[in-house]
């Protein structure tokens, strides 16, 4: 891309095997340790270090312990508000989900390109977000059927439905239910992809306009650069909001499974 002078905004999403693990495989499936896998490991390790700081278990917490307890308390409140006290047992799962996605989003936004590194946001890949979404959806199904058995299907027939409408409504509700994992996974993937593409496109404007002529660089380039600053801030917000939306929707769906309607 350098030789053509053209900046490919999609190149940041390319998955490349690292450390010569291209052909690592299990049972015929390729499991190369890629840049994507590296960022998954980084997110897990950063989260691990973060939570270790909250393990002092002091009665009067320090700043770090306070921060970790704030995050677990935030998830606890989210679950208690949506599900009730029964929601407390989902704290480990929703906390893991929220923090893992949040750190993935934020680590992918780090300006590591300045140091010649290649930051990667694995939440911009639906292969990753899809697994997380299917995981949440499976938990909803397992909890729903384990708790309510076949009665769980009453979720698809709202209260006070006229007898004539039961069958069509059942199918409409079923479809909206089945769409959930897709909306969950695709929302995160699309939001992260779009933000990163936008940043790269604007960065391309800055570089290409400055290369074309000083006048264009000062007008189009500087305008794009100022816009980039704002959008970078917006992307940090989006990173937090998308992680929150994922956790929130998971807890809303868990509420359906836990309490039906």
């Amino acid at each position, binding site marked *: 891309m350098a030789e053509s002078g053209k900046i490919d905004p999609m190149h940041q999403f390319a998955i490349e095997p690292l450390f010569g693990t291209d052909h690592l495989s299990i049972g015929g499936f390729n499991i190369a340790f890629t840049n994507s896998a590296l960022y998954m490991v980084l997110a897990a390790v950063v989260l691990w270090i973060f*939570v270790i700081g909250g393990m002092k278990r002091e*009665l009067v917490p320090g700043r770090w312990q306070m921060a970790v307890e704030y995050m677990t308390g935030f998830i606890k409140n989210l679950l208690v508000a949506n599900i009730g006290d029964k929601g407390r047992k989902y704290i480990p799962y929703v906390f893991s989900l929220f923090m893992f996605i949040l750190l993935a989003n934020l680590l992918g936004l780090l300006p590591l390109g300045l140091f010649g590194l290649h930051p990667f946001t694995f939440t911009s890949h639906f292969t990753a977000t899809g697994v997380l979404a299917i995981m949440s959806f499976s938990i909803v199904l397992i909890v729903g059927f384990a708790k309510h058995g076949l009665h769980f299907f009453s979720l698809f027939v709202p209260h006070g439905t006229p007898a004539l409408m039961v069958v069509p409504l059942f199918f409409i509700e079923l479809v909206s239910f089945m769409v959930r994992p897709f909306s969950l996974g695709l929302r995160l993937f699309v939001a992260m992809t779009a933000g990163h593409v936008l940043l790269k496109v604007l960065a391309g404007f800055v570089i290409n306009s400055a290369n074309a002529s000083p006048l264009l660089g000062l007008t189009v380039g500087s305008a794009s650069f100022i816009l980039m600053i704002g959008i970078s801030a917006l992307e940090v917000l989006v990173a937090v909001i998308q992680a929150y939306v994922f956790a929130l929707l998971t807890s809303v769906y868990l509420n359906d499974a836990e309490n039906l309607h």
Partner: protein
Amino acid sequence: MPQIAQIAETYSSQIFWLLLTFGFVFFVIGLGMVPKVQGTADARDAKISGDLDAAKAAFARADEAEADYRDRDAESRTAAQAVMAKAKAEAAKASEARLAAADADVAARIAAAEARIQAASSAAMAEIETVAADAARDMVARISGVNATDEAARNAVKAALAHG
């Protein structure tokens, strides 16, 4: 779009590493560490609310004790007032009795003294009569040379004394 273009060769690696890392996050951090962190926070909340309850209970007990003290204070005040009134009444009664006794004593003494005065004055009167009768007999004897009887003189003196 590499997400779609590379899907065939990367999906297995993506899923494998995601399950591995998220499994670590869920089992080690989520199940192993988060309950302890949340437990600490819950324990602190419980301790704070417990301490607050204890403080509230102590306040209530202090109020109760104060009310109790007030009650007992008022009670002992009325009791003291009753004792004082009783003592006052008793003292008044006692002093009245003593006053009455003293009055009677004084009255008796006055009566005795009056009787003595009466006796003394009647004795003195009798003496005056005798002396006056003697003097009258003398005067009669000197003037008329008649010896008046004792009885006559005395009757004359009595008459004269009675007429002043």
